């Protein structure tokens, strides 16, 4: 028999967890930005409640209006768990999600706001999701896929080794971040084997509105959020739902590319406007690996704030190129009554599903 000895790996991890947050003892500001937030807390809780909680969370393509002035502190919960979802007719798989859909819900805050974020890893629970934070097109049913996960908010400026750390099934993490910079941001799971974690559905959008707004805020008639992403799936030889196709993910040959998590999402429920309206789109290309050449057929973007920062203003663009995790605010005037297709102008991806519709009524 082997002699009893301490497992060196366990010891090492125990030490690491004691010292992980040592760097963030004190809050400070540089250039008006807040840094040095408290150490993340990892714990277990007996929480069985709703998996997505926050006054300013919404399901795609909607964005919750900020009905407050100045800054506030948000309490936001986005649990991570598995759901069997549909992303195209007949194509279902067990997605790894934040909040029950892929992409997850959109969070809206204002530059300077503080977010106290909580996430429980419920990947080994069957969690039922309910409207309004539900992607109706995905026809989700609860599933289980126990797996460690983490949360990485691109909108946060923190030590990833602390805040974005991976938690085991059954654990909860809580941490704070401050929305120091305005923009359209990605959030995603950053646990290694990250290509698989993101390709399985763990991403969504955060919109940080600038503290002084965008120049056109008073003229915008409709605002929508669109998240583009790729799905890499193969038929399962044993039947049942589809499985992750790593060879396809590495070759960047997605089986489906979609806006808002389903090839029909923005067709069956088109974005709505009227002729002469100014429409604002908050667009995120979640990837995980592809680009988006975002285009509205029949319109020209007359204002673009690349990454959503008001200093990055561009004008008169037919197509906006977004790399993986790039975002932008794009506005256009709806020319006349009719139907407008929204596409990734990389047509191989449009043909895989990256398309949608804006339906315009008569001028009012």
């Amino acid at each position, binding site marked *: 028999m082997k002699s009893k000895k301490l497992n060196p790996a366990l010891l090492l991890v125990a030490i690491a967890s004691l010292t992980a947050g040592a760097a963030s003892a004190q809050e400070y500001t540089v250039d008006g930005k807040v840094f040095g937030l408290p150490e993340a807390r990892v714990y277990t809780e007996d929480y069985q409640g709703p998996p997505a909680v926050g006054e300013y969370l919404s399901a795609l393509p909607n964005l919750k209006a900020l009905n407050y002035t100045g800054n506030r502190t948000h309490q936001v919960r986005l649990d991570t768990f598995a759901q069997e979802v549909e992303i195209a007719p007949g194509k279902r798989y067990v997605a790894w999600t934040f909040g029950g859909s892929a992409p997850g819900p959109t969070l809206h805050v204002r530059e300077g706001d503080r977010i106290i974020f909580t996430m429980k890893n419920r990947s080994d629970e069957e969690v039922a999701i309910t409207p309004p934070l539900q992607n109706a097109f995905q026809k989700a049913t609860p*599933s289980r896929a126990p797996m*460690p996960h983490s949360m990485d908010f691109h909108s946060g400026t923190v030590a990833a080794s602390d805040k974005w750390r991976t938690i085991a099934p*059954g654990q909860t993490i809580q941490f704070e971040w401050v929305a120091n910079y305005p923009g359209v941001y990605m959030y995603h799971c950053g646990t290694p*084997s990250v290509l698989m974690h993101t390709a399985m559905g763990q991403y969504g959008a955060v919109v940080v509105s600038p503290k002084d707004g965008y120049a056109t805020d008073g003229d915008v008639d409709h605002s929508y959020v669109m998240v583009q992403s790729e799905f890499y799936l193969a038929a399962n030889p044993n039947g049942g*739902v589809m*499985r*992750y196709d790593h060879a396809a993910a590495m070759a960047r040959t997605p089986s489906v590319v979609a806006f808002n998590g389903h090839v029909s999402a923005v067709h069956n429920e088109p974005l709505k406007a009227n002729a002469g309206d100014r429409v604002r789109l908050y667009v995120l290309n979640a990837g995980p690996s592809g680009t988006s050449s975002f285009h509205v057929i029949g319109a020209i973007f007359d204002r673009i704030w690349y990454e959503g920062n008001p200093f990055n203003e561009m004008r008169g663009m037919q197509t906006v190129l977004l790399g993986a995790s790039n975002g932008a605010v794009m506005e256009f005037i709806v020319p006349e009554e009719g139907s407008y297709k929204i596409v990734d102008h990389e047509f191989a991806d449009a043909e895989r599903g990256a398309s949608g519709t804006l339906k315009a009524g008569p001028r009012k």
Partner: protein
Amino acid sequence: MRNLLCLPALALAASAVQAEPVAIDGGTLQLRVLLGDSTTVSIAPFRLDATPVTNADFAAFVAASPRWGRDAAPSVFRDAGYLQALATAPADYPITHVSWFAASAYCAAQGGRLPTQDEWEYVAHESTHLEPDTYAAMLFAYYADPASHARRAVGAAHVGRWGVHDMHGLVLEWVEDFQMVAKSSTGDSAIGASCGDTARYLADNDPAHYVTFLRYQSRSNYTPRTTTSTLGFRCAYDIAT
């Protein structure tokens, strides 16, 4: 080897389960996940349970060691889900919802221990000899819906070399050194802090290596208290020299 104090209700089903350890020949493991300078590791002969430990096996252990019962086990040794399925799951299904601490205690009670990561990988590879793409497809299919796979008796699948069953496709399994530690000349460090950090640990970038890394990595992010519906174990035994 096995504890024979089976609960009467489980005894019949338990007798159908052949979880006796089998002899594993020594040999060389070609590492798919590289945590140090070496690409191979030498494995000494040992014995390994032919199947994952079953509910009947574990119920017998709890009957003999009540301090490892669902409510009795101290919470520092297990999370809230510990043994949550034991009362209802069929006797010949693999035990799940079991922590690393409890699995280690079980194996110690049998005069054994958990296999090391390298021992487990060696047996998995040598006992199945799957083509890399077949192996990857099978495991990705497993991860596509893992909870559905733990719902069958142990030993039903194809038997491999040495008479070993169910290394893949039934449950994931604890190993003794389940947390990945990268060894380098500048010291050891735990792996798992950040994303995009895979290629430097893989002997090759194909799906077979990636899915192997996923097994190492996901297990590495558990705590020794963690229990899940898809995580079981089997025991290894040293051969007296």
